[in-house]
Every structure is written in structure tokens, then in C-alpha cells.
């Protein structure tokens, strides 16, 4: 079977590809509108527990509202003598990577006319705690390695599914953020 025959014109993964392609064309013509700023606001609650609220962002040349606010709790588990009021920040990083890649797979599949039935991404990050605890200065704080395992049921060949996952990584913001260095500036007001 050829790739063309396998494409289902009725594929519906709930992604509005036409709108995305339209936005792409529009932003190519007006690069200044493509400049976005994503924002979060975090308040300390107690111990290692903090709560982040996520609302507006900047893009398309102006402040944008999304009509609601999301909250995310982060804490550490009892094994860290903490109150366990939320996932750890590093787990949220894994969740960000997984969600970004998964959204990418859905979008690429829609664009390629591939019907998805289910996607599960399981992530695992290796960390040597001697880093953050300051035991061994040769050990980094962050993950040594992250492994992502996708289980995807889709109306497509194994090769086409692998190509979706590869393309999703190529276009993923969080994959880029994690695999490449970023300058971070922290100040105190």
C-alpha cells in the first residue's frame, strides 16, 4: 500500500489544521505578530508547595486573554519530608515535554490525513540526587537522560507513525527547550 492510499481524507483528530496553516502563512508575512511572550505567576504556599497561575499571554502584537485561569500545584513527596501537595517541578517538566510532543503528533497526523485512535506517552527522566543535594559537584542537577516511550494506535503503517513522532520532535518547543541551552535571567524586585 502506498502512503497516499493510506491517508484517510476523513481523519479527524480534533485539530484544526486549516486554521494552523492559515496562521502560519499570516505570521510568515508579518513576523512581528509572531513574537509571543508566555507568562506564569507562582506564589509560595508553604514548605516546598507553591501554586502557579497561568492566564494571559502576549502575541499577535497585543496582550491576549484566554477567558480563564489555570492553576498548577507543585510540591515534593513525603519521601522528601514534604507535604505532597502537587507533582514535583521536574515531573511537570516531563509533563510539559510529553504534552508538547503529543500535541505535535496529533497535529502532524491531522495534516498528513492519519486517523489517531490513541496515544500514550510514558516518560522517565534519570536524576542523580547527589547533584541537587550538593554531594558531588561533578553531578549535574537536572536530568542526565530523558526517555520518551510512545504507544500510538493509528490507521497508518509503523514507519508512518515513527515519522509522525520524529516530525513532532522536530517542531516541538519543549523538546527544543530541553535539548538546547537557554539563557535564563533571574532578578529580584
Amino acid at each position, binding site marked *: 500500500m*502506498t502512503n497516499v492510499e493510506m491517508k484517510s481524507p476523513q481523519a479527524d483528530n480534533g485539530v484544526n489544521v486549516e486554521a494552523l496553516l492559515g496562521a502560519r502563512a499570516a505570521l510568515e508575512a508579518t513576523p512581528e505578530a509572531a513574537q509571543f511572550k508566555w507568562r506564569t505567576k507562582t506564589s509560595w504556599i508553604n514548605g516546598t508547595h507553591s501554586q502557579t497561575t497561568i492566564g494571559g499571554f502576549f502575541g499577535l502584537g497585543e496582550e491576549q486573554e484566554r477567558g480563564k485561569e489555570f492553576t498548577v500545584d507543585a510540591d515534593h513527596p513525603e519521601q522528601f519530608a514534604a507535604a505532597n501537595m502537587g507533582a514535583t517541578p521536574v515531573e511537570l517538566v516531563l509533563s510539559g515535554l510529553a504534552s508538547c510532543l503529543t500535541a505535535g503528533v496529533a497535529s502532524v497526523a491531522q495534516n498528513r490525513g492519519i486517523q489517531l485512535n490513541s496515544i500514550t506517552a510514558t516518560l522517565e527522566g534519570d536524576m542523580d540526587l547527589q547533584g541537587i543535594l550538593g554531594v558531588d559537584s561533578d553531578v549535574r542537577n537536572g536530568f542526565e537522560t530523558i526517555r520518551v516511550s510512545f504507544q500510538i494506535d493509528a490507521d497508518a503503517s509503523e514507519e508512518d507513525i515513527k515519522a509522525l513522532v520524529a516530525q513532532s520532535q522536530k517542531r516541538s518547543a519543549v523538546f527544543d527547550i530541553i535539548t*538546547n541551552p537557554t539563557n535564563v535571567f533571574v532578578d529580584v524586585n
Partner: protein
Amino acid sequence: MKSVTTIIIGAGQAGLAASKQLSDRGIDHIVLERGSIGNSWKTERWDSLRLLTPNWQSRLPGYFYDGPEPDGYMNMSEVVSYLESYSRVIDAPIQDNTNVISVERRFERYIVKTTRGTWASSTLVLANGACSLASIPKFADAVPQSIRQMSPLEYKNPDQLESGGVLIVGASATGVQLAREIQQSGRQVTLSVGEHIRVPRTYRGKDIKWWMDVLGLLDIMYHEVEDLNRVRKLSSLQLAGTQDCMFDLNSLSDCGVEITGRLAAMRGEHAIFSGSLANVCSLADLKMNRLLESIDQCVEANAGTEVTIPPRTFEPTRVPEAPALNIDFGDRKIKTVIWATGFKPDYSWLHLPVFDRKGNIRHEGGIVDAPGLYVLGLPFLRKRKSTLIDGAGDDAGFVASHLASSLRKAAA
């Protein structure tokens, strides 16, 4: 000031093909060449380079290879001889050793100032090459002073390099070819790998370029592709003009080259690489397998053809278990960085408002956004083969026809 109907800038394959196509239409013209015929091939390439296309594919309008080795790959002096011989056959009006200093438009004419006088013409064909300058990423500024930096335009052979390690950034045709010979010269090479295009040299007994030709891939037109900007920026195929069936990252790893991810930043004495190596290798493997599958389908659909060698698969690219993310130039005794990060044309002398915000020349299939101005030889100018010697003829033919009809309109 000398006057002519058309000035062609550059006497490489594109400029010569254009000259032939203009001569065929009786359009008087001159070819201005900064050095001598095939100057970039002669002076700005490394010693071991051979064309990535087989000899039979070096077809030019009214000219083709008829030597003893149709499946061989020309070295640079052979390319230059081939072009010289073509220019004699077509009797191209070349003025050599003439460097263009500036091009301006005044009173509806192009004024071309050169080191040997000023010319004026109503039409102008830019055929000065797509690879005159090395594209070097901004990290270059942050490389420590003690490290020698080189572009492939200056590189000739490993003897130029200090002993010690070499970091080669980029793993397309240039990067992999340099990595192999420099590693073989006894210098430890670290090869930084971003997106690349992996293909075997031969498949089922035929050159990959033969397959691409047969499948019609080289003739795909610029308006037929989904994302023209993307295909115009694609890197060269990971190939060498040698008979090895497969010249890839696996074979480089086998000769001791260390493979790392894309260079992501320089921090003092450290080079930081992206953690995306596994994915760029996976993308390349998947893409290669799709190409090979389409070749197999083509063979099946044309049963009884001369292809008798069965399909085969290639080992996936072996990614190191823990690719280096951070290397210390001091620890690795790295003395040289070579930027095999692509090339770009040089239009610094073209004082016309024809560039987009990225500095690329604005053109529609070779017709530049200025009256009577044309460009040749750029990636995917009109077809995928536009940068090949084999692509020069078709593009030059189109440009010459358009140019001739614009002259007729102007005269009417």
C-alpha cells in the same frame, strides 16, 4: 562605457549554459568572470572533492560527457576542463579576470562596474554561484581565540591543520567528507550533526542520482512543492563522489569519528551540543527508507527492467548511548573548528532593491523582481536539479526565452 544587450555574471556551468541559450537566440551578450572558467570549482574547493553526480549526468545544452567512465565522478580539475571544453564548443564570449565591483540601475539600464571597465546592458543574468560565501553560525564569535576557525572555502587538505583534535560542525556532504579524511590523517574528529539527508551512493546496482532522475525527483518544479522556503534551504545529500555503497555516520563512527548533536552554544572553552541527535538520525533514516521504498515500487511497477539486484535495508544510524553534550576544547586538545554549515551566494555588489528580509534574492523561478534581471544556479531555483550541472541547461533555457520575449516586447 561598453554596451551590450545582456551581461552574464559568472562563467561556471550556469553562466555558460545561459551563454549558449542566448547565442542560440541570437542575443548579443558577454560573460564576465572574476577569475577564469569554473573559478569556484578551481579555487574554492578542497583537493579531494569530486562531483556528487556521476559523469553521464553532467549534461549541458548541446554537450555531454562521452569519456570512458560514465559512472565515475569528476575531480575538480576535470570539472574545470569539462567546462573549458564546453565554452570552446559553444564559443562563449567570456571576459575573464574581471571582478564585478557594483551593479546599479540607471536610466533603465544595468551599469556593471568591474575591475576592467564599466559595462551597460538592458538585461542581466546573475550566474555567480550559490556557494561563494560560507554560512557560519553566530557561535563562531564565541569560539576561543586560541582555536583556528576555517570554512570549507579555505580548507584544502588535512596538512593545513595543526595536529590535535578537530571539531567539524555540519554533517552534510562537506562535513562528512572532511570528517573522513581528517580523521584518517590522524586527527581526532568530533562531528556535530544536525538535520541531514542520508542516502546510499548506490542502490540495487544504480547510482542514487540515477534513481532520483528516473523517479522524476530532480525535475520537480518549484511551484509543485509544499514549502518552497524549506526545500531551498535543505542541506546537500550525505554523499561523496566515491564508489562506497554507503558513506554515512555509521561508517564515520567505524573510523573513529565521534558523533555529537547539533552545536547549540559556545560557553568559554566549552562547546555545548543539542540533545536532539537521536531524532535527527531517526528523521534521516525514515526519510532514506521512504526514498528506497519508492525506488522498490518503481522497480515493481516496471517489471522486466534491467534492475535485477534485490532490495536491501541499511542498518539504522547508530547513535552513541550518551552523545557528548558538552566538550572542553582543552581536554579534547581541539585546535581547529571547521564550519561545514552551508554556503550562500555573494551579492554584496548588487545595489538593487531585490532582497527579502533574510537577504535572499526575490525571484520567481529565476525571474528577479526587477526588469530584465535574472538569476541562475540557486537551490531549487526552478527544479530540484537547479544546483546540479545537469539542471543548468533547463533553467538557462527558460531564462533565455523569457529574456528574449521581454526584449521583443520592449522593441515593439
